[in-house]
């Protein structure tokens, strides 16, 4: 079981990764922007602390935290965000599609709720091969209104598959509040399919870890799917683009109140004297290396723009005459 230091280290890594990434968005090194995870770090850290390397996760647009907590190399992750060929996805995925199959990370996903069925299929494959691997699907509160996710709850519960659905309820689906978007309660929707569904404080990494560990153990033992709603507050914008768009949908008082309970402080307070500063310094060194690596890495060769389009290596036409000498 992960220690308080482990949990804090993961959360600090996610926090600083995000802060450095936002700087790189503002300096133009990260094109397209990111969906910051700041404020939700305890959820990724807590859930992934309950997982093994061979367990599978699917993630969301706001996926950096999940990918890092599951064990991906932050250096190659940052290189991916800057679109370098040294990145996790060789610069083909970027922030919204970061994936690392060596760590069971089937990727962040640009479509809300799309990862649920994919994770559930992976859980089925695990059962078929006789392993006790589990799969976790992370999604936001907006995703609970997606039909495919509700269909997936049915399949997972019906077939008692070892999948954990983790809803990160940060109160907003982009700018739509949960009150405007969700009828009834989120956990009641999951419970209606016959799976255990609980709500935990998503700012408390220990609480998340313990709830996830119980659900994961149930899944490994053949007890079927579970649902975990983690309440959280998104400290920053939905997307870095918001700063330019200047959209206003949260009162300053609300944001200040939300930020006042920082999950890093909650967890940091549990560390012995001096441990927090030591971990912070350790993480800082990693991020310094990551930024340098990302900026020093070569951009991909445009000639390879469609490399990997097919697993079989199929090449389509390029939009120019194929048969030389005909014209």
């Amino acid at each position, binding site marked *: 079981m992960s220690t308080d230091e482990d949990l804090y280290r993961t959360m600090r890594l996610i926090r600083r990764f995000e802060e450095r990434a936002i700087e790189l968005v503002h300096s133009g090194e990260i094109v397209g922007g990111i969906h910051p995870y700041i404020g939700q770090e305890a959820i990724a850290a807590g859930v992934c602390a309950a997982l093994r390397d061979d367990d*599978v996760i*699917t993630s969301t647009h706001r996926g950096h935290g999940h990918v890092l907590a599951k064990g991906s190399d932050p250096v190659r992750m940052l290189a991916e965000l800057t679109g370098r060929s040294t*990145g*996790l*996805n*060789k*610069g*083909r*995925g970027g922030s919204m*599609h970061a*994936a*690392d*199959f060596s760590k069971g990370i*089937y*990727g962040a*996903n640009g*479509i809300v709720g*799309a990862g*649920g*069925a*994919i*994770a*559930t*299929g*992976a*859980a*089925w*494959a*695990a059962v*078929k*091969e006789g392993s006790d691997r589990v*799969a976790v699907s992370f999604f936001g509160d907006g995703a609970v209104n997606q*039909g*495919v996710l509700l*269909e*997936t709850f*049915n*399949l997972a519960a*019906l077939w008692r598959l070892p999948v954990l659905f983790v809803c990160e309820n940060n109160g907003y689906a982009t700018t739509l509040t949960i009150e405007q978007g969700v009828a009834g309660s989120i956990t009641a929707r999951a419970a209606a399919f016959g799976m255990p569904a609980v709500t935990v404080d998503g700012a408390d990494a220990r609480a998340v870890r313990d709830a996830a560990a119980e659900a994961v153990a149930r899944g490994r033992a053949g007890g079927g799917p579970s649902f975990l709603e983690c309440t959280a507050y998104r400290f920053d914008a939905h997307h870095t683009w918001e700063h330019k768009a200047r959209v206003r949908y949260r009162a300053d008082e609300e944001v200040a109140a939300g930020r006042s309970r920082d999950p890093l402080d909650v967890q940091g307070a549990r560390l012995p004297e001096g441990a927090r500063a030591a971990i912070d310094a350790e993480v800082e060194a990693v991020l310094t290396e990551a930024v340098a690596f990302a900026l020093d890495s070569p951009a991909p060769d445009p000639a390879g723009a*469609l*490399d*990997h*389009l*097919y*697993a*079989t290596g*199929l090449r*389509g*036409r390029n939009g120019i*005459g*194929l*048969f030389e000498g*005909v*014209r």
Partner: protein
Amino acid sequence: MARLSYLKALQRALADEMARDERVCVLGEDIGVGVNNVTTGLLAKHGPQRVVDTPLSEQAFTSFATGAALAGLRPVIEFQIPSLLFLVFEQIANQAHKFSLMTGGQAKVPVTYFVPGSGSRSGWAGQHSDHPYGLFAHVGVKTVVPATPEDAYGLFLTAIRDDDPVVLFAPAGSLGVRADVDMDALGPVPLGVGRVHREGADVTVVAVGHLVQAALDVAEQLSDQISVEVFDPRTLYPFDWAGLAASVNKTGRLVVVDDSNRMCGIGAEILAVAAEEMRLAVPPRRVTRPDGAVLPFARELDLAVQPQRDQLLTAVQEVYKSSR
């Protein structure tokens, strides 16, 4: 030689692949009892862990198959009607197809999406009668439309063995086709290789799926006046452009017959490539459903929308007579 029906060929292909490779499993609605007769007997033989009767949850089970494929299985999904592919376009075009590139080659998604009964089935009306293969070719999903029993067998085998997502459309109009085949010679047919069913010197007719038989009839009917070559692409993506060029560069004349909508259809693409890259002596023609068509219910109306043999015959005659 033995008599083999197209439907039986599909059934045999799936059964053979499931017996050959433990990783192959089949999912879909009503497949336990084998409503479409393709999965008949498989549940009894392989059990419910490999022959999975799914709830009516097309979007979920389509991406479920993606997850299973990413984890090492080779799922085949049977869709009871072609229009369900509209419902799962996100799961195929935007998820399964994009995984390989977006992950920088880390992932492969060997799922086969299989529609045993595409296009008009007489009286199944607007939402059961589409032939949406052009959509998949457009987004670059491997798209297969076999026309004969041996190709149905061989292309289904290849689709299941392929490491990328593949959609296989079995036209309703082909299911009853029978042919004398050498069973021992049945085997995989590569994607992207067309087939000349009948050689000719004057006009190339490209026919898709069940329209191959119509094209062969027309070729025979015109045989004393016009020498028609019938080219069956077999796979629409990847398309055998070199094979088509060999035919068109010989005949100089091209007609495409395709039972899907005209605007942005596969017929339009074939004409465009031929115009750009091949030696056409005269302007090409295509015989298709109308722009944006929805198949009406009444038999007379249904037939009025589908490409007909006499339309193809007229098109071939007109192309043959025309000159620059």
